[in-house]
């Protein structure tokens, strides 16, 4: 279902790359998640899915989905978020999404602390904090070309683009 793919096309309207069928299907999943029928998904509702509860990055993903920052994901945000994983969304969008996973305070830079936190979510107690810190430092060093100690989107995408990882950020809905 999710393999690689990279087809560039710019969003016509609202970044939605879905046709009606897909929107309908997404709508169904949205309704299924929307337990209190409020029209928006709270974190609790997300967490009602057992798989999601066990995903270390779920909070980050929800935060990134939640573009207006009100703590809930409404249907528009839901579609927009999911559309970034469509085959039709372009590389830039996927990189943006990946970048914003790391960029917790949304200032356009990944700081040392942010990277640390995100990685901490992914390793839990598997690594000691100081090990993790070394890792973070190391990563920042490699990515940080202008030496400001933090990673801009350009620096991030330069490396990630090379690795063609963005091709993997594709889901067939």
């Amino acid at each position, binding site marked *: *279902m*999710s*393999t*690689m793919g990279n087809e560039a096309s710019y969003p016509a309207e609202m970044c939605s790359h879905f046709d009606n069928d897909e929107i309908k299907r*997404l709508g*169904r*999943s949205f309704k*299924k*998640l929307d337990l209190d029928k409020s029209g928006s998904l709270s*974190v*609790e509702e*997300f*967490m009602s899915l057992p798989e999601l*509860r*066990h*995903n*270390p*990055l779920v*909070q980050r*993903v929800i*935060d990134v989905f939640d573009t207006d920052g*009100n703590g809930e994901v409404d249907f528009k945000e*839901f579609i927009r*978020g*999911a559309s970034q*994983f469509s085959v039709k969304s372009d590389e830039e969008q996927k990189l943006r999404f*990946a970048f914003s996973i*790391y960029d917790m305070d949304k200032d356009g830079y990944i700081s*040392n*602390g942010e990277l*640390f*936190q*995100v990685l*901490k*979510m*992914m390793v*839990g*107690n598997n*690594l*000691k*904090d*100081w090990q993790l*810190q*070394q*890792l973070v*430092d*190391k*990563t920042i060093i*490699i990515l940080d070309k202008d030496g400001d*100690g933090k990673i801009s989107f350009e620096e991030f995408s330069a*490396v*990630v683009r090379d*690795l063609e*990882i963005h*091709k*993997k*950020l594709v*889901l*067939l*809905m």
Partner: protein
Amino acid sequence: MLRAALSLLALPLAGAAEQPTQKPESLGEPLPGLELFRWQWHEVEAPYLVALWILVASLAKIVFHLSRKVTSLVPESCLLILLGLVLGGIVLAVAKKAEYQLEPGTFFLFLLPPIVLDSGYFMPSRLFFDNLGAILTYAVVGTLWNAFTTGAALWGLQQAGLVAPRVQAGLLDFLLFGSLISAVDPVAVLAVFEEVHVNETLFIIVFGESLLNDAVTVVLYKVCNSFVEMGSANVQATDYLKGVASLFVVSLGGAAVGLVFAFLLALTTRFTKRVRIIEPLLVFLLAYAAYLTAEMASLSAILAVTMCGLGCKKYVEANISHKSRTTVKYTMKTLASCAETVIFMLLGISAVDSSKWAWDSGLVLGTLIFILFFRALGVVLQTWVLNQFRLVPLDKIDQVVMSYGGLRGAVAFALVILLDRTKVPAKDYFVATTIVVVFFTVIVQGLTIKPLVKWLKVKRSEHHKPTLNQELHEHTFDHILAAVEDVVGHHGYHYWRDRWEQFDKKYLSQLLMRRSAYRIRDQIWDVYYRLNIRDAISFVDQGGHVLSSTGLTLPSMPSRNSMAETSVTNLLRESGSGACLDLQVIDTVRSGRDREDAVMHHLLCGGLYKPRRRYKASCSRHFISEDAQERQDKEVFQQNMKRRLESFKSTKHNICFTKSKPRPRKTGRRKKDGVANAEATNGKPRDLGFQDTAAVILTVESEEEEEDSDSSETEKEDDEGIIFVARATSEVLQEGKVSGSLEVCPSPRIIPPSPTCAEKELPWKSGQGDLAVYVSSETTKIVPVDMQTGWNQSMSSLESLASPPCNQAPTLTCLPPHPRGAEEPQAPLYPPSDPHPSFAFPPSLAKAGRSHSESSADLPQQQELQPLMGHKDHTHLSPGTNSHWCIQFNRGSRL
């Protein structure tokens, strides 16, 4: 020729009769008396010839590779075929008859299995399974398509009168021929593609196809053959149905046989703990048994061995010892390479035998054109269909390479030789055509595919190891994908993989892996450990060289010590400088950086939570045990819940709440670095990289302690190894302490490193920065011109350290309560161990170490210097205790 020559020599060369009892010679009358010298050529003939052929082939290989230019242009397989032609010509000219041909029996029973086993065992499983759909399509549909179209087209050609009427063949004969000529040959593909280095996806598709199409080829060949033998008139509708059914029987049966043997193999290796020596043998024996069993049941033997290799690898690799793993790897590669060489050479030789074949230009040309054309057409059509489903479409260039890479080889040749001339009257023509096709594909296409790939700018495979970043981001992306998948509520493809993983973890792994292997959470330690050894070895050479080139010897140092120390020192320096934040340093010390990457990579492999969708891939190398899985789930869950609670308490803006948490820790690190720094800069600046490193301590539980403490010495010596301690433990303690005490410091960057208690109290912090405190830094120092004085200096300096006041204990006690449990076990990880006797420090150093630890009497024993290298002295441990391996690595972390 050889045989003739040798049999001449086999004449009795007996001298004067001395003793009577002798077996009568085959030649000549029985001679009474003992022969002084006797040839027994006929007794050794067969194995001798086999050995000779292999030797010739190997020597030829060596000769080819003498010239880099030739091998870079011409694939080895071409050269071998040409050599075979030449040798065959010589044999033919001398013996007047063709000898030493590629016998189908030999080929299928002895030459093919090693190659297939090698490719199955070392198949990149994730890549293979990710592309399984495409591979299966090309293998099944593609082969069927090729066989039928080629056969039918040839028949059409004959009907059109373009094939000479002396070729007596009907539609069925042509279909039979089509079925054997259509299959892409794994040996040829492997030989050519391994030198071309196209990207992995392309390679795995072509190669996977060539392996998996065996079942189709075998079935088609058998069905057609039996139809031909029955005569087309007698073939009934049920026979066609049987033919279709046999496709499933042969392929699934072959795969099942392979999996059964894989299971047996894994199970057997679980119990080889005390007889490590036969582990590699078991792998080969059972895989070969799988092949023979499948062959016996006329199932697809290639499929059986491929599945056996694919299936058993994970468990076998976990069960067998490190040395066995290496042995398996090299033996497999050697056998496969050897078999491949012999196959190509014999192919060349066989082609010389003109008695076997009859030429028909129409048939030959027609076949050549048809197989190329239909292959290309088939690939294009199938790719078009596949691209509807693939998210990464195979582009035109890929399709060209796939079409062009459809090489035919020895399988086709062996199959055509197997035909029965009485049933297939056109056999000789088919043989000739097959030889031409094989030669054309291997030589012409093999020669041109490299330039073609270059010209088309096909994406080549990149051989760099995954970088730290890649590793990180891939993990992140996998988690993201999993999360989004769940959010949008879409489950499919990965669901089954997930289920399989669960099953594997719950039952298979537990059944097939020995408990110790199963328990070790991930093999990261193993890798890490091997990395250490490799580095040490390479640095031993390097270090020795450095020492000798400067003409210095360390008088008081046993050579082995000096070497080892130098090595570890270099290791430290290198990895340390790689960690230094100075970008220039990183760039200049590439090797250090690369190694650093590798280490980090393995650290990540072990540390990162396994995303759902990655289980499959990661299990082959880094399997996580079931409880690890549960633990991970639990941890993540708890974290998520905690985060929820936190965000409840805080407003939306307070996202920084969680963020502020790790800060103090970082501060701690900073501060600690500050300490190290201050320490370093007190004297003349030393190797910054080294100084700024933090110790990474890994404790590896030895596999051997499993259930019996009496595990044999030999095994211990066999499989266990070397302790590298890159740094005296004092620093580690210091680190723990500092990171705790630094909670006070708000921000590392703003506030300059203030002297810690340690800094204030440790006497050598002031003034003696230049002199060594630890073993490692001792040798890190630039070797003074006068080694002796330098040595004495450091000796005296070390001795002057013998009187530091009880310095670190107080700081330890004044620690604020440690916020994180995570860091606490650090010190206890250190096993109380003594330097191994065989690895004594130079007296002065040992003394320094001792005095150091004596001076800080309050410090635990861990303070003592660790052996740089040497066996763990298990006599110091009570039986039954885990043997710990302490691997300490210097990591950089300073900003």
